[in-house]
């Protein structure tokens, strides 16, 4: 009976090609295999984000008057609303943390080299989209803290010469952070970014399947000895173990450390003390703070923003700068990865002090 249903569906959908591909696909087994799990874990958290996000949309109202009250209602009146919000918020952090780990592992193992340059670029774009997801989502509760942090965050592009003021105005939907900004951020968060993310994700997954999984340098040297396991079922079962543990950790943290909600933002009130962005923006926030007001003929902020933009461009085009053939070492690039991690950690801790 089951086989008849499957063959009936196969005749109409033609999925035999996909299942055939999955059964033939293999995954290299070596001491760096652990990094391969980060990709599917990101996907898992993205799915959690979509499901919980959809549940929150049912009750959230993106207007100046109702945004904070609707979040308060979700947290206090809607059955299990507080846990849905908590899972949504924490899974965003988990997802971004895993995106960082995923990209760092590729950076350190040099898996972005030929022929995987486009895979890296699509991954880097996915990271930017994920960060923008976090940035737009942070404003939605419309409380004191999120309002002030968004005010600071949307003011940063202003420092870019020529297009800065225009970019800030585009982000805010006006001169200041108002109800229009909230509606705009909501639209970007629930409509534009998901479309971008799904398209990029499809491209990224296609490229990963097309080029296959890369081997780290040590394993590549002894390719004939490298062990491989079938993707289905051997690797998928292993991934399931990782997913279960990650879901367990996510729910444990979401249950005991749910995000609170401050009082509704007052547009006219002065900014409260101790404004902090989300943890993944802390190192950028601190970088902007350490620059002096003026350096020669430019403002410190402009210089800092330009340097950050330069670093992002370098990061995006990394496979073009480090275009050695796969299998050759690149100590400077590895060193840069470690320096970046150290810098981000020191700056993040510093900004919390």
């Amino acid at each position: 009976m089951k086989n008849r249903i499957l063959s009936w569906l196969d005749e109409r959908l033609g999925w035999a090609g996909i299942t055939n591909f999955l059964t033939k696909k293999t995954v290299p087994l070596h001491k760096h295999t652990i990094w391969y799990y980060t990709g599917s874990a990101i996907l898992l958290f993205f799915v959690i984000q979509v499901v919980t996000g959809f549940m929150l949309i049912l009750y959230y109202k993106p207007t100046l008057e109702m945004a904070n009250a609707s979040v308060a209602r979700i947290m206090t009146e809607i059955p299990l609303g507080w846990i849905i919000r908590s899972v949504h918020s924490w899974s965003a952090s988990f997802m971004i943390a895993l995106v960082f780990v995923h990209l760092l592992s590729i950076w350190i193992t040099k898996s972005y080299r030929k022929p995987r340059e486009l895979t890296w670029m699509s991954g880097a774009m996915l990271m930017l989209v994920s960060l923008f997801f976090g940035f737009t989502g942070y404003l939605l509760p419309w409380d004191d803290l999120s309002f002030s942090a968004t005010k600071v965050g949307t003011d940063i592009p202003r420092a870019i010469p020529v297009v800065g003021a225009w970019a800030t105005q585009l982000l805010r939907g006006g001169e200041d952070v108002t109800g229009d900004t909230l509606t705009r951020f909501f639209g970007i968060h629930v409509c534009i970014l998901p479309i971008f993310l799904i398209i990029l994700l499809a491209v990224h997954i296609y490229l990963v399947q097309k080029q296959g999984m890369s081997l780290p340098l040590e394993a590549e040297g002894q390719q004939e000895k490298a062990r491989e396991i079938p993707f289905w079922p051997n690797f998928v079962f292993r991934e399931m173990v990782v997913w279960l543990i990650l879901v367990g950790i996510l729910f444990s943290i979401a249950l005991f450390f749910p995000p609170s909600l401050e009082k509704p933002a007052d547009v006219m009130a002065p900014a409260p003390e101790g404004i902090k962005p989300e943890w993944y923006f802390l190192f950028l926030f601190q970088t902007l703070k350490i620059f002096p007001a003026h350096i020669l003929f430019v403002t410190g902020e402009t210089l800092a923003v330009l340097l950050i933009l330069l670093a992002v461009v370098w990061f995006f085009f990394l496979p073009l700068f480090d275009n050695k053939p796969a299998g050759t070492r690149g100590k400077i690039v590895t060193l840069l990865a470690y320096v970046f991690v150290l810098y981000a950690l020191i700056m993040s801790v510093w900004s919390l002090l």
Partner: protein
Amino acid sequence: MIRLRPFFLTIGFLVFLLIAWAGNTYCSAQLTETQGQLKTFQEEKEPEKIVGAPQDVKQRTGIWVFFIWMWISIIVLVFFLRLKIKEVDRLNALRFFSAEKK
């Protein structure tokens, strides 16, 4: 030794169920008392900040019960998945899947 494992697991489950039931009953009894105090407190002071998790004892107990059940379920599932992984790895070593593909 291996045969004893299911026995200890069953005993563990039963003890857990008993503790969960006893805890729930105890907390329900306390709830009536606490609810009165909580209402007075809420009427006295309108909070500026909404705390994420529910504060009443019954719901807090529910959170703990869910938390323990969730981890028990995860541990059991991981245990079975490990068995499955061992099995499919053994089949792979015997080249069962490559024979199937042909």
